[in-house]
Protein backbone atom coordinates (compact mmCIF):
# COMPACT_ATOMS: atom_id res chain seq x y z
CA UNK A 1 0.00 0.00 0.00
CA UNK A 2 1.26 3.47 -0.88
CA UNK A 3 2.33 5.78 1.92
CA UNK A 4 -0.37 8.30 2.76
CA UNK A 5 0.40 11.54 0.92
CA UNK A 6 0.42 15.02 2.34
CA UNK A 7 -2.70 17.14 1.80
CA UNK A 8 -2.58 18.59 -1.69
CA UNK A 9 -3.93 22.04 -2.52
CA UNK A 10 -6.51 22.42 -5.28
CA UNK A 11 -6.23 25.81 -6.99
CA UNK A 12 -9.25 28.02 -7.62
CA UNK A 13 -9.63 30.68 -10.33
CA UNK A 14 -8.44 33.28 -7.81
CA UNK A 15 -5.36 31.36 -6.69
CA UNK A 16 -4.27 29.70 -9.94
CA UNK A 17 -1.56 32.35 -10.60
CA UNK A 18 0.07 31.52 -7.26
CA UNK A 19 0.28 27.81 -8.02
CA UNK A 20 1.39 28.47 -11.62
CA UNK A 21 4.12 30.60 -10.04
CA UNK A 22 5.45 27.92 -7.72
CA UNK A 23 5.56 25.51 -10.65
CA UNK A 24 7.64 28.06 -12.55
CA UNK A 25 9.94 28.52 -9.55
CA UNK A 26 8.45 31.87 -8.52
CA UNK A 27 6.75 33.00 -5.34
CA UNK A 28 4.01 35.30 -6.61
CA UNK A 29 2.27 37.91 -4.50
CA UNK A 30 -0.26 40.60 -5.32
CA UNK A 31 0.06 44.36 -4.92
CA UNK A 32 -2.75 46.89 -5.03
CA UNK A 33 -2.27 49.40 -7.85
CA UNK A 34 -4.26 51.99 -5.90
CA UNK A 35 -2.77 51.83 -2.39
CA UNK A 36 0.38 49.71 -2.92
CA UNK A 37 -0.70 47.19 -0.26
CA UNK A 38 0.95 43.79 -0.71
CA UNK A 39 -1.25 40.94 0.46
CA UNK A 40 -1.72 37.18 0.75
CA UNK A 41 -3.57 34.80 0.31
CA UNK A 42 -4.50 35.61 -3.29
CA UNK A 43 -7.72 37.38 -4.24
CA UNK A 44 -8.61 39.65 -7.15
CA UNK A 45 -9.11 42.79 -5.03
CA UNK A 46 -7.26 44.64 -2.31
CA UNK A 47 -8.37 43.64 1.20
CA UNK A 48 -7.15 47.01 2.44
CA UNK A 49 -8.90 49.47 0.07
CA UNK A 50 -11.23 47.18 -1.98
CA UNK A 51 -9.75 48.25 -5.31
CA UNK A 52 -10.03 45.63 -8.04
CA UNK A 53 -6.93 47.03 -9.75
CA UNK A 54 -4.23 44.70 -8.48
CA UNK A 55 -1.05 43.32 -10.01
CA UNK A 56 0.73 40.01 -9.62
CA UNK A 57 4.48 40.21 -9.09
CA UNK A 58 7.38 37.90 -8.33
CA UNK A 59 8.37 38.21 -4.68
CA UNK A 60 11.98 38.08 -3.53
CA UNK A 61 11.44 34.72 -1.88
CA UNK A 62 13.21 36.03 1.21
CA UNK A 63 11.75 36.21 4.66
CA UNK A 64 12.22 35.53 8.36
CA UNK A 65 10.88 32.94 10.78
CA UNK A 66 7.93 34.55 12.57
CA UNK A 67 6.78 31.59 14.71
CA UNK A 68 6.36 27.83 14.62
CA UNK A 69 5.47 24.63 16.41
CA UNK A 70 7.34 21.36 16.17
CA UNK A 71 4.56 18.85 15.74
CA UNK A 72 5.00 15.51 17.46
CA UNK A 73 1.51 14.00 17.56
CA UNK A 74 -0.81 13.48 15.90
CA UNK A 75 1.18 13.73 12.68
CA UNK A 76 -0.50 14.70 9.42
CA UNK A 77 -0.49 12.11 6.61
CA UNK A 78 2.75 12.31 4.65
CA UNK A 79 4.76 13.77 7.55
CA UNK A 80 7.26 12.09 9.83
CA UNK A 81 7.29 13.64 13.31
CA UNK A 82 8.77 15.71 14.73
CA UNK A 83 8.34 18.33 12.02
CA UNK A 84 8.08 22.09 12.21
CA UNK A 85 5.03 23.97 10.97
CA UNK A 86 6.25 27.50 10.48
CA UNK A 87 4.88 30.92 9.68
CA UNK A 88 7.27 32.91 7.51
CA UNK A 89 7.21 36.69 7.36
CA UNK A 90 8.09 37.61 3.79
CA UNK A 91 10.31 40.63 3.15
CA UNK A 92 7.38 42.14 1.21
CA UNK A 93 5.20 42.04 4.35
CA UNK A 94 2.67 39.19 4.13
CA UNK A 95 3.08 36.02 6.17
CA UNK A 96 2.50 32.47 5.01
CA UNK A 97 2.52 29.03 6.52
CA UNK A 98 5.25 26.67 5.33
CA UNK A 99 7.84 24.11 6.40
CA UNK A 100 11.53 24.68 7.03
CA UNK A 101 13.81 22.30 5.14
CA UNK A 102 17.58 21.72 5.28
CA UNK A 103 17.47 22.49 9.01
CA UNK A 104 17.18 20.29 12.11
CA UNK A 105 13.62 20.38 13.42
CA UNK A 106 14.69 21.50 16.89
CA UNK A 107 14.14 24.61 19.02
CA UNK A 108 17.91 25.17 19.01
CA UNK A 109 18.17 25.22 15.22
CA UNK A 110 14.90 27.03 14.58
CA UNK A 111 15.56 30.51 15.88
CA UNK A 112 12.83 33.12 15.61
CA UNK A 113 13.69 35.87 13.12
CA UNK A 114 16.29 33.73 11.35
CA UNK A 115 16.62 34.56 7.66
CA UNK A 116 14.94 32.20 5.23
CA UNK A 117 14.66 31.78 1.49
CA UNK A 118 12.05 30.00 -0.56
CA UNK A 119 12.62 26.52 -1.98
CA UNK A 120 10.20 24.69 -4.24
CA UNK A 121 9.07 21.13 -3.69
CA UNK A 122 7.27 19.46 -6.55
CA UNK A 123 4.39 17.23 -5.41
CA UNK A 124 3.19 16.23 -8.87
CA UNK A 125 2.77 17.65 -12.38
CA UNK A 126 0.29 20.24 -11.18
CA UNK A 127 1.34 21.25 -7.69
CA UNK A 128 4.64 22.56 -6.35
CA UNK A 129 4.76 23.78 -2.74
CA UNK A 130 6.69 26.81 -1.52
CA UNK A 131 8.92 25.68 1.36
CA UNK A 132 11.69 27.64 3.07
CA UNK A 133 15.26 26.93 4.14
CA UNK A 134 17.82 28.92 6.11
CA UNK A 135 19.20 31.68 3.89
CA UNK A 136 22.76 31.18 2.68
CA UNK A 137 25.41 33.59 3.85
Amino acid at each position, binding site marked *: MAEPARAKP*KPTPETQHFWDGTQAGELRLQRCDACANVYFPPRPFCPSCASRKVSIFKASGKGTLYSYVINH*RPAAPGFTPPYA*IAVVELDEGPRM*MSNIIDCPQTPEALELDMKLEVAFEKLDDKITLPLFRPAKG
Partner: protein
Amino acid sequence: MRKNAVAVVGAAETTELGVIPNMSQIQLHADAALNAIADAGLKLSDIDGIATAVETPQQIAHYLGITPTWVDGTSVGGCSFMLHVRHAAAAIEAGLCKTVLITHAESGKSMIGKLPRSTPPDSLNGQFESPFGVYGPPSMFPIPVLRYMKTYGITHEQIAMVAVAQREWAAKNPRATMKAPITVEDVLNSKMIAYPFRILQCCLVTDGGGALILTSADRAKDFPNKPVYILGTGESVETPMVSQMETFNSSRAFKVAGPTAFREAGISHKDVDHLMIYDAFAHLPLFGLGDLGFMPHEETGKFIADGNTRPGGKLPLNTNGGGLSYMHSGMYGMYALQESVRQMRGIAPAQVKDAKISVCHGVGGMFAASGTIIFTNER
Protein backbone atom coordinates in the same frame (compact mmCIF):
# COMPACT_ATOMS: atom_id res chain seq x y z
CA MET B 1 -27.72 46.88 24.22
CA ARG B 2 -29.51 47.85 27.47
CA LYS B 3 -27.77 46.61 30.59
CA ASN B 4 -29.54 43.89 32.55
CA ALA B 5 -32.56 43.81 30.23
CA VAL B 6 -32.24 40.07 29.66
CA ALA B 7 -31.45 37.29 32.12
CA VAL B 8 -30.40 33.66 32.18
CA VAL B 9 -33.22 31.81 33.93
CA GLY B 10 -32.22 28.26 33.14
CA ALA B 11 -28.79 26.66 32.94
CA ALA B 12 -27.61 23.07 32.97
CA GLU B 13 -25.04 20.69 31.60
CA THR B 14 -25.62 17.12 30.47
CA THR B 15 -26.40 14.72 33.30
CA GLU B 16 -23.01 13.08 32.75
CA LEU B 17 -19.76 14.61 31.56
CA GLY B 18 -16.60 12.93 30.36
CA VAL B 19 -17.09 9.67 28.53
CA ILE B 20 -20.72 9.08 27.54
CA PRO B 21 -20.74 6.03 25.25
CA ASN B 22 -24.49 5.50 25.47
CA MET B 23 -25.63 8.77 23.87
CA SER B 24 -25.32 10.27 20.41
CA GLN B 25 -24.46 13.91 19.90
CA ILE B 26 -28.03 15.03 19.25
CA GLN B 27 -29.26 13.22 22.36
CA LEU B 28 -26.58 15.01 24.37
CA HIS B 29 -28.13 18.27 23.11
CA ALA B 30 -31.53 17.05 24.23
CA ASP B 31 -30.24 15.88 27.62
CA ALA B 32 -28.74 19.30 28.31
CA ALA B 33 -31.83 21.10 26.98
CA LEU B 34 -34.24 19.04 29.11
CA ASN B 35 -32.09 19.66 32.18
CA ALA B 36 -32.08 23.42 31.51
CA ILE B 37 -35.84 23.47 30.93
CA ALA B 38 -36.37 21.64 34.23
CA ASP B 39 -33.98 24.07 35.92
CA ALA B 40 -36.09 26.98 34.66
CA GLY B 41 -39.38 25.27 35.57
CA LEU B 42 -40.58 25.55 31.97
CA LYS B 43 -42.15 23.28 29.37
CA LEU B 44 -40.66 22.73 25.91
CA SER B 45 -43.70 24.54 24.48
CA ASP B 46 -42.62 27.71 26.32
CA ILE B 47 -39.51 27.96 24.11
CA ASP B 48 -39.97 30.23 21.09
CA GLY B 49 -36.35 30.90 20.19
CA ILE B 50 -33.53 28.45 19.55
CA ALA B 51 -29.80 28.78 18.90
CA THR B 52 -27.14 26.15 18.42
CA ALA B 53 -23.83 25.55 16.64
CA VAL B 54 -22.42 22.75 14.48
CA GLU B 55 -25.76 20.97 14.64
CA THR B 56 -28.34 23.13 12.88
CA PRO B 57 -31.21 24.86 14.68
CA GLN B 58 -33.68 22.84 12.59
CA GLN B 59 -32.16 19.56 13.79
CA ILE B 60 -32.41 20.59 17.43
CA ALA B 61 -35.84 22.19 17.07
CA HIS B 62 -37.23 19.11 15.36
CA TYR B 63 -35.64 16.66 17.79
CA LEU B 64 -37.00 18.56 20.78
CA GLY B 65 -40.37 19.36 19.16
CA ILE B 66 -40.03 23.13 19.29
CA THR B 67 -41.59 25.59 16.82
CA PRO B 68 -39.48 28.72 17.10
CA THR B 69 -40.19 32.27 15.91
CA TRP B 70 -36.48 33.09 16.06
CA VAL B 71 -33.43 30.97 15.26
CA ASP B 72 -29.68 31.52 15.29
CA GLY B 73 -27.26 29.02 13.79
CA THR B 74 -24.13 31.11 14.26
CA SER B 75 -21.32 28.55 14.21
CA VAL B 76 -17.93 30.21 14.66
CA GLY B 77 -16.31 27.58 16.86
CA GLY B 78 -16.20 27.20 20.61
CA CYS B 79 -17.37 30.73 21.42
CA SER B 80 -20.53 30.39 19.29
CA PHE B 81 -22.58 30.23 22.48
CA MET B 82 -21.31 33.60 23.68
CA LEU B 83 -22.48 35.02 20.37
CA HIS B 84 -25.81 33.22 20.77
CA VAL B 85 -26.28 34.86 24.18
CA ARG B 86 -25.55 38.26 22.66
CA HIS B 87 -27.86 37.70 19.69
CA ALA B 88 -30.62 36.23 21.87
CA ALA B 89 -30.49 39.20 24.23
CA ALA B 90 -30.90 41.54 21.24
CA ALA B 91 -33.73 39.42 19.83
CA ILE B 92 -35.62 39.35 23.14
CA GLU B 93 -35.15 43.11 23.49
CA ALA B 94 -36.46 43.59 19.94
CA GLY B 95 -39.53 41.46 20.67
CA LEU B 96 -38.67 38.72 18.16
CA CYS B 97 -39.13 36.03 20.79
CA LYS B 98 -39.64 35.70 24.52
CA THR B 99 -37.79 32.61 25.73
CA VAL B 100 -34.63 31.39 24.03
CA LEU B 101 -32.98 28.00 24.39
CA ILE B 102 -29.27 27.79 23.48
CA THR B 103 -27.84 24.29 23.25
CA HIS B 104 -24.40 22.81 22.81
CA ALA B 105 -23.30 19.20 22.86
CA GLU B 106 -20.54 17.22 21.38
CA SER B 107 -19.69 13.55 21.36
CA GLY B 108 -16.09 14.67 21.24
CA LYS B 109 -14.61 11.53 22.77
CA SER B 110 -17.05 8.76 21.84
CA MET B 111 -17.73 10.26 18.37
CA ILE B 112 -21.31 8.98 18.17
CA GLY B 113 -23.45 10.84 15.64
CA LYS B 114 -20.76 13.50 15.30
CA LEU B 115 -20.38 15.17 11.93
CA PRO B 116 -16.85 14.84 10.55
CA ARG B 117 -14.97 18.09 10.17
CA SER B 118 -13.10 18.42 6.92
CA THR B 119 -11.07 21.05 5.11
CA PRO B 120 -11.73 21.02 1.35
CA PRO B 121 -8.48 21.14 -0.68
CA ASP B 122 -9.73 24.15 -2.65
CA SER B 123 -10.57 26.23 0.44
CA LEU B 124 -8.00 28.81 1.50
CA ASN B 125 -7.11 26.68 4.53
CA GLY B 126 -6.87 23.63 2.28
CA GLN B 127 -4.50 25.40 -0.09
CA PHE B 128 -2.37 27.46 2.25
CA GLU B 129 -2.27 25.59 5.58
CA SER B 130 -3.19 21.90 5.21
CA PRO B 131 -0.26 21.07 2.85
CA PHE B 132 2.21 22.08 5.56
CA GLY B 133 1.21 19.43 8.05
CA VAL B 134 -1.38 21.04 10.28
CA TYR B 135 -3.53 18.27 11.68
CA GLY B 136 -6.08 19.27 14.28
CA PRO B 137 -6.02 22.08 16.84
CA PRO B 138 -2.87 20.96 18.76
CA SER B 139 -0.76 21.54 15.64
CA MET B 140 -2.36 24.92 14.90
CA PHE B 141 -3.46 26.75 18.03
CA PRO B 142 0.02 26.92 19.64
CA ILE B 143 1.68 28.35 16.48
CA PRO B 144 1.64 31.94 17.85
CA VAL B 145 3.07 30.98 21.27
CA LEU B 146 6.82 31.24 20.56
CA ARG B 147 6.40 34.70 19.02
CA TYR B 148 4.24 35.85 21.97
CA MET B 149 6.85 34.55 24.43
CA LYS B 150 9.71 36.30 22.64
CA THR B 151 7.86 39.60 22.29
CA TYR B 152 6.80 39.81 25.93
CA GLY B 153 9.52 37.85 27.71
CA ILE B 154 7.13 35.09 28.84
CA THR B 155 8.73 31.84 30.09
CA HIS B 156 7.79 28.19 29.61
CA GLU B 157 7.41 27.90 33.39
CA GLN B 158 4.94 30.79 33.50
CA ILE B 159 2.72 29.23 30.83
CA ALA B 160 2.95 25.87 32.62
CA MET B 161 1.50 27.57 35.70
CA VAL B 162 -1.78 28.09 33.83
CA ALA B 163 -2.31 24.32 33.92
CA VAL B 164 -1.16 24.04 37.54
CA ALA B 165 -3.50 26.78 38.82
CA GLN B 166 -6.46 25.38 36.95
CA ARG B 167 -5.85 21.91 38.30
CA GLU B 168 -6.11 23.44 41.77
CA TRP B 169 -9.58 24.74 40.86
CA ALA B 170 -10.54 21.39 39.32
CA ALA B 171 -9.60 19.60 42.54
CA LYS B 172 -12.53 21.40 44.19
CA ASN B 173 -14.97 20.31 41.50
CA PRO B 174 -16.48 16.80 41.73
CA ARG B 175 -17.44 16.90 38.04
CA ALA B 176 -13.95 17.80 36.82
CA THR B 177 -12.32 15.16 34.62
CA MET B 178 -8.79 15.67 36.01
CA LYS B 179 -8.39 16.42 39.72
CA ALA B 180 -4.97 15.14 40.82
CA PRO B 181 -2.56 17.98 41.69
CA ILE B 182 0.22 18.76 39.21
CA THR B 183 3.40 20.84 39.39
CA VAL B 184 5.17 23.03 36.84
CA GLU B 185 7.73 20.24 36.54
CA ASP B 186 4.98 17.71 35.77
CA VAL B 187 3.68 19.98 33.01
CA LEU B 188 7.11 20.54 31.46
CA ASN B 189 7.91 16.82 31.58
CA SER B 190 4.61 15.62 30.17
CA LYS B 191 4.33 14.12 26.70
CA MET B 192 5.30 16.51 23.89
CA ILE B 193 2.42 17.31 21.54
CA ALA B 194 3.49 20.33 19.50
CA TYR B 195 6.52 22.18 20.84
CA PRO B 196 6.36 24.32 22.89
CA PHE B 197 3.22 22.63 24.21
CA ARG B 198 2.98 19.36 26.06
CA ILE B 199 -0.11 17.33 26.79
CA LEU B 200 -0.87 19.04 30.11
CA GLN B 201 -1.05 22.36 28.22
CA CYS B 202 -3.64 21.00 25.78
CA CYS B 203 -7.37 20.68 26.44
CA LEU B 204 -9.06 17.44 27.30
CA VAL B 205 -11.19 15.52 24.83
CA THR B 206 -14.54 14.56 26.35
CA ASP B 207 -18.25 14.13 25.71
CA GLY B 208 -20.88 16.46 27.09
CA GLY B 209 -23.19 19.36 26.55
CA GLY B 210 -24.90 22.32 28.10
CA ALA B 211 -27.91 24.55 27.61
CA LEU B 212 -29.05 28.02 28.65
CA ILE B 213 -32.47 29.63 28.75
CA LEU B 214 -32.80 33.39 28.43
CA THR B 215 -35.78 35.68 28.84
CA SER B 216 -36.47 39.33 29.61
CA ALA B 217 -35.31 40.49 33.01
CA ASP B 218 -38.81 41.72 33.82
CA ARG B 219 -40.09 38.11 33.66
CA ALA B 220 -37.01 36.65 35.32
CA LYS B 221 -38.18 37.09 38.90
CA ASP B 222 -40.94 34.54 38.31
CA PHE B 223 -38.49 31.68 37.79
CA PRO B 224 -37.35 29.21 40.46
CA ASN B 225 -33.64 30.11 40.37
CA LYS B 226 -31.83 33.36 40.98
CA PRO B 227 -31.72 35.29 37.67
CA VAL B 228 -28.32 36.06 36.21
CA TYR B 229 -28.41 39.31 34.22
CA ILE B 230 -26.54 40.11 31.04
CA LEU B 231 -24.60 43.29 31.75
CA GLY B 232 -22.41 43.54 28.66
CA THR B 233 -21.63 41.65 25.46
CA GLY B 234 -19.14 41.71 22.61
CA GLU B 235 -18.20 39.66 19.56
CA SER B 236 -15.90 39.62 16.58
CA VAL B 237 -14.13 37.40 14.06
CA GLU B 238 -10.70 37.67 12.48
CA THR B 239 -9.53 34.86 10.19
CA PRO B 240 -10.02 31.09 9.85
CA MET B 241 -6.28 30.78 9.09
CA VAL B 242 -4.05 31.07 12.14
CA SER B 243 -1.13 31.95 9.85
CA GLN B 244 -3.00 35.04 8.67
CA MET B 245 -3.65 36.66 12.07
CA GLU B 246 -2.72 40.33 12.05
CA THR B 247 -0.13 39.60 14.74
CA PHE B 248 0.82 36.73 17.07
CA ASN B 249 1.26 39.23 19.93
CA SER B 250 -2.48 39.65 20.36
CA SER B 251 -5.86 38.47 19.06
CA ARG B 252 -7.73 41.12 17.08
CA ALA B 253 -11.03 39.32 17.72
CA PHE B 254 -10.33 39.37 21.48
CA LYS B 255 -9.45 43.06 21.31
CA VAL B 256 -12.80 43.87 19.75
CA ALA B 257 -15.10 41.51 21.69
CA GLY B 258 -13.67 42.08 25.17
CA PRO B 259 -13.51 45.87 25.29
CA THR B 260 -16.94 46.11 23.57
CA ALA B 261 -18.42 44.09 26.42
CA PHE B 262 -16.68 46.19 29.07
CA ARG B 263 -17.92 49.42 27.46
CA GLU B 264 -21.45 48.08 27.20
CA ALA B 265 -21.38 46.98 30.84
CA GLY B 266 -19.90 50.29 31.98
CA ILE B 267 -17.55 48.52 34.37
CA SER B 268 -13.80 48.68 34.90
CA HIS B 269 -11.47 45.74 35.40
CA LYS B 270 -11.31 46.21 39.16
CA ASP B 271 -15.07 45.52 39.29
CA VAL B 272 -14.57 41.95 38.02
CA ASP B 273 -14.98 39.32 40.75
CA HIS B 274 -14.75 36.23 38.57
CA LEU B 275 -13.24 35.54 35.18
CA MET B 276 -13.50 32.77 32.63
CA ILE B 277 -11.13 32.75 29.64
CA TYR B 278 -11.68 29.84 27.27
CA ASP B 279 -8.50 27.77 27.62
CA ALA B 280 -8.34 25.35 24.73
CA PHE B 281 -4.57 25.60 25.23
CA ALA B 282 -2.50 27.12 28.01
CA HIS B 283 -1.64 30.37 26.26
CA LEU B 284 -5.24 31.50 25.89
CA PRO B 285 -5.55 32.97 29.40
CA LEU B 286 -2.43 35.08 28.77
CA PHE B 287 -3.79 36.45 25.51
CA GLY B 288 -7.14 37.03 27.23
CA LEU B 289 -5.75 38.91 30.23
CA GLY B 290 -3.80 41.18 27.90
CA ASP B 291 -6.36 41.70 25.16
CA LEU B 292 -9.25 42.26 27.56
CA GLY B 293 -7.15 44.98 29.18
CA PHE B 294 -6.60 43.48 32.62
CA MET B 295 -2.87 44.17 32.30
CA PRO B 296 -0.20 44.68 29.65
CA HIS B 297 0.73 41.44 27.86
CA GLU B 298 4.24 41.69 29.36
CA GLU B 299 2.73 41.06 32.83
CA THR B 300 0.35 38.19 32.04
CA GLY B 301 2.84 35.35 32.57
CA LYS B 302 4.11 36.70 35.87
CA PHE B 303 0.58 37.48 37.05
CA ILE B 304 -0.44 33.83 36.64
CA ALA B 305 2.90 32.44 37.87
CA ASP B 306 2.56 34.56 41.03
CA GLY B 307 -0.68 32.75 41.86
CA ASN B 308 -3.13 35.59 41.29
CA THR B 309 -5.59 33.38 39.40
CA ARG B 310 -5.43 30.27 41.60
CA PRO B 311 -7.81 29.57 44.51
CA GLY B 312 -7.39 32.40 47.01
CA GLY B 313 -5.85 34.69 44.38
CA LYS B 314 -7.17 38.16 43.65
CA LEU B 315 -8.58 37.30 40.22
CA PRO B 316 -10.21 33.83 40.27
CA LEU B 317 -9.84 32.47 36.72
CA ASN B 318 -11.35 29.35 35.16
CA THR B 319 -12.77 28.19 38.46
CA ASN B 320 -14.29 24.98 37.08
CA GLY B 321 -10.82 23.77 36.08
CA GLY B 322 -11.18 24.97 32.50
CA GLY B 323 -10.77 23.11 29.25
CA LEU B 324 -7.45 21.84 30.57
CA SER B 325 -8.91 20.03 33.60
CA TYR B 326 -12.72 20.28 33.75
CA MET B 327 -13.87 19.04 30.36
CA HIS B 328 -13.55 19.96 26.68
CA SER B 329 -15.91 18.38 24.21
CA GLY B 330 -14.63 20.45 21.29
CA MET B 331 -16.60 23.68 21.73
CA TYR B 332 -15.95 24.58 25.34
CA GLY B 333 -17.57 28.04 25.40
CA MET B 334 -20.84 26.65 26.76
CA TYR B 335 -19.08 25.23 29.84
CA ALA B 336 -17.40 28.56 30.54
CA LEU B 337 -20.83 30.20 30.41
CA GLN B 338 -22.27 27.53 32.72
CA GLU B 339 -19.55 28.19 35.29
CA SER B 340 -20.14 31.96 35.16
CA VAL B 341 -23.86 31.36 35.74
CA ARG B 342 -23.14 29.01 38.67
CA GLN B 343 -20.82 31.61 40.19
CA MET B 344 -23.47 34.31 39.81
CA ARG B 345 -26.11 32.05 41.32
CA GLY B 346 -23.74 31.30 44.19
CA ILE B 347 -23.81 27.53 43.64
CA ALA B 348 -20.41 26.78 42.05
CA PRO B 349 -18.40 23.93 43.58
CA ALA B 350 -15.50 26.36 44.02
CA GLN B 351 -17.69 29.37 44.78
CA VAL B 352 -16.03 32.80 44.79
CA LYS B 353 -17.45 34.47 47.88
CA ASP B 354 -19.79 37.41 47.23
CA ALA B 355 -19.01 37.45 43.51
CA LYS B 356 -21.27 39.98 41.77
CA ILE B 357 -19.70 40.38 38.33
CA SER B 358 -18.41 37.58 36.12
CA VAL B 359 -16.64 38.06 32.79
CA CYS B 360 -16.84 35.10 30.40
CA HIS B 361 -14.57 35.28 27.37
CA GLY B 362 -14.55 32.78 24.55
CA VAL B 363 -12.47 31.92 21.51
CA GLY B 364 -13.60 30.18 18.32
CA GLY B 365 -11.34 28.27 15.97
CA MET B 366 -7.65 29.16 16.28
CA PHE B 367 -8.21 32.81 17.32
CA ALA B 368 -10.71 32.93 14.44
CA ALA B 369 -13.59 34.31 16.50
CA SER B 370 -14.39 35.68 19.91
CA GLY B 371 -17.33 36.42 22.17
CA THR B 372 -17.47 38.02 25.60
CA ILE B 373 -20.40 38.03 28.01
CA ILE B 374 -20.41 39.96 31.29
CA PHE B 375 -22.90 38.66 33.84
CA THR B 376 -24.12 40.11 37.12
CA ASN B 377 -26.48 38.90 39.84
CA GLU B 378 -27.56 42.42 40.78
CA ARG B 379 -30.04 44.36 38.72
